[in-house]
């Protein structure tokens, strides 16, 4: 670099260098304190003149609220309760709009099909565009949109209220113990929305080591695309035995258990990494707890709903649509007796069985790599001999499809675990590469979760079978 500079520039650099060392020689350890101290004194004297407090007690309202929300006794119970309430609201509220959307799409499909018949379109075109593309989109929209439109506004309200820094405050010690950064809990909160966005948000962590920990473990927080899988499977299989009045609660409890398991895995993996590949001690940091603010309710709700709906719709069109088409093609091109899809499934089946899954499920996860949203739709499509994604208007019919393919509670549990723990989606991996510029760390961020997913589901399956529970 230096040799390309011309003499004038070089001499100016020299001037600056000597100026800097001159300044440095004048620097005393106390001068920094004095400079900052002087600024603070100036601020204070200005404030004393221009600010008047009518009631100093009002200033400390946030502190009183903190006294409860971050107290030794209530801090953690309240945190869990808030998470539980949000999940419960999401599950309880999403059912009706979901089936309404599905019905609307089904009703519309009838007319589209009529239209295709009217113009004498060939069967394969109808299959590709309607049974593949259209159903792919409508599945994602009707299953994803309602839960997201409830979860995210509720979450945004908590965020605008100022609760998230308190979560970081409460959880800090756990992250310190595991070698991570206290702000890792904030990046995890972002992960609930979208892991790919959360990878960008890890920029708030300055230490490269701790940032890498946050990146490598972010995937253990279920995102937008995985919530519905967790909710659907736990309501169909896990909560089925519970009295009907309590089913929503049971579903919420199981989904929450999954989230907490993800947190435990995050801490565990962070701890292992900070003892091995990412050795080091936690860096210094400070955390501000800003005053609580009453969120502008409708403003927040409408904005979060619109943002998330647009996001979901965009993903549906960009990712789910082509995936629907590809899956339809794979299921409808035959090599010998079996379709390509079935060949893949047969190949994966033995390994998948060892994990308590089956070949279809594993194939859905592999084909669903571009976006987690499409894993369930691909699975459904695989299960149906017609080779098209099914319309799901009735939950009992949906469950019957799973049962017909030999599902037990173990299959559902392990699919949930695999969904929670497995490799990040394609977008997230691309973002990880962009942020780290390292093929090695990008690969590890794929490999570590995958190893966890395989390890955990394998263990659960073997234990459950060994104990004769299934």
């Amino acid at each position, binding site marked *: 670099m230096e040799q390309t500079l011309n003499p004038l520039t070089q001499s100016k650099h020299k001037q600056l260098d000597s100026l800097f060392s001159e300044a440095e020689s004048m620097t005393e350890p106390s001068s*920094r*304190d004095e400079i*900052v*101290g002087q600024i*603070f004194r100036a601020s204070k004297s200005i404030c004393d003149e221009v600010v008047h407090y009518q009631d100093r007690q009002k*200033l400390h309202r*946030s*502190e009183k609220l*903190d*006294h409860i929300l*971050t*107290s*030794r006794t209530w*801090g*953690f119970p309240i945190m869990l309760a808030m998470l539980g309430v949000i999940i419960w609201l999401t599950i309880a509220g999403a059912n009706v709009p979901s089936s309404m959307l599905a019905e609307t799409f089904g009703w519309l499909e009838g007319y589209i099909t009529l239209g295709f018949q009217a113009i004498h379109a060939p069967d394969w075109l109808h299959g590709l565009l309607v049974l593949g593309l259209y159903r792919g989109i409508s599945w994602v929209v009707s299953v994803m949109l309602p839960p997201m439109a409830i979860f995210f506004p509720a979450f945004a309200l908590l965020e605008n209220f100022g609760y998230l820094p308190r979560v970081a*405050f*409460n959880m*800090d*010690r*756990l992250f*310190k113990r595991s070698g991570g950064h*206290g702000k890792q809990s904030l990046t995890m909160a972002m992960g609930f929305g979208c892991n790919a966005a959360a990878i960008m948000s890890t920029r708030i962590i300055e230490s490269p080591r701790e940032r890498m920990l946050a990146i490598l473990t972010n995937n253990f927080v279920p995102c937008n695309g995985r919530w519905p899988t967790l909710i659907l499977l736990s309501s169909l299989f896990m909560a089925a035995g519970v009295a009907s009045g309590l089913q929503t609660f049971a579903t919420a409890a199981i989904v929450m258990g999954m989230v907490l398991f993800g947190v435990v895995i995050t801490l565990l993996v962070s701890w292992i990494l900070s003892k091995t590949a990412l050795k080091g001690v936690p860096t*210094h*940091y*400070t*955390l*501000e*707890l*800003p*005053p609580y603010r009453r969120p502008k309710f409708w403003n927040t709700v409408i904005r979060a709903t619109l943002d998330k709906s647009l996001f979901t719709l965009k993903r549906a069109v960009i990712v789910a649509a082509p995936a629907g088409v590809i899956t339809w093609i794979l299921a409808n091109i035959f090599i010998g007796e079996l379709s390509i899809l079935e060949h893949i499934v047969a190949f994966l089946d033995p390994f998948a069985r060892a994990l308590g899954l089956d070949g279809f499920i594993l194939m859905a996860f592999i084909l669903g790599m571009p976006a987690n949203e499409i894993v369930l739709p691909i699975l459904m499509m695989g299960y149906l001999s017609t080779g098209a994604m099914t319309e799901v208007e009735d939950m009992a019919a949906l469950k019957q499809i799973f049962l017909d393919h030999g599902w037990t509670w173990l299959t559902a549990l392990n699919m949930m675990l695999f969904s929670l723990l497995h490799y990040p989606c394609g977008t997230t991996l691309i973002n990880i590469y962009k942020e780290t510029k390292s093929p090695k760390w990008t690969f590890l961020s794929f490999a570590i979760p995958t190893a966890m997913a395989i390890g955990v589901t394998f263990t659960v399956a073997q234990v459950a079978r060994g104990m004769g529970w299934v």
Partner: protein
Amino acid sequence: MNTEIPLSEAKPGQTLRINRLELDGTMRRRLLDLGFIPGADVHILRKSPLGDPVALRVSNTTIALRVEESSRIFGEVLGE
């Protein structure tokens, strides 16, 4: 009569007047920027549910510090 103690040993409810910071580099600068300057008063609000970090009121804002930092800030407890 007052004796100097580290901030980490002050109890919730107490107010400490800062004498000195035994920290260097970026962390010292950051703490100075947040108002942890010699002569400033720090009010100890409460400990996190797991015992650490500790929430402090300084310059009319709430800042949480871990024991690693607060043990290096020294000052005298003011009358309660």
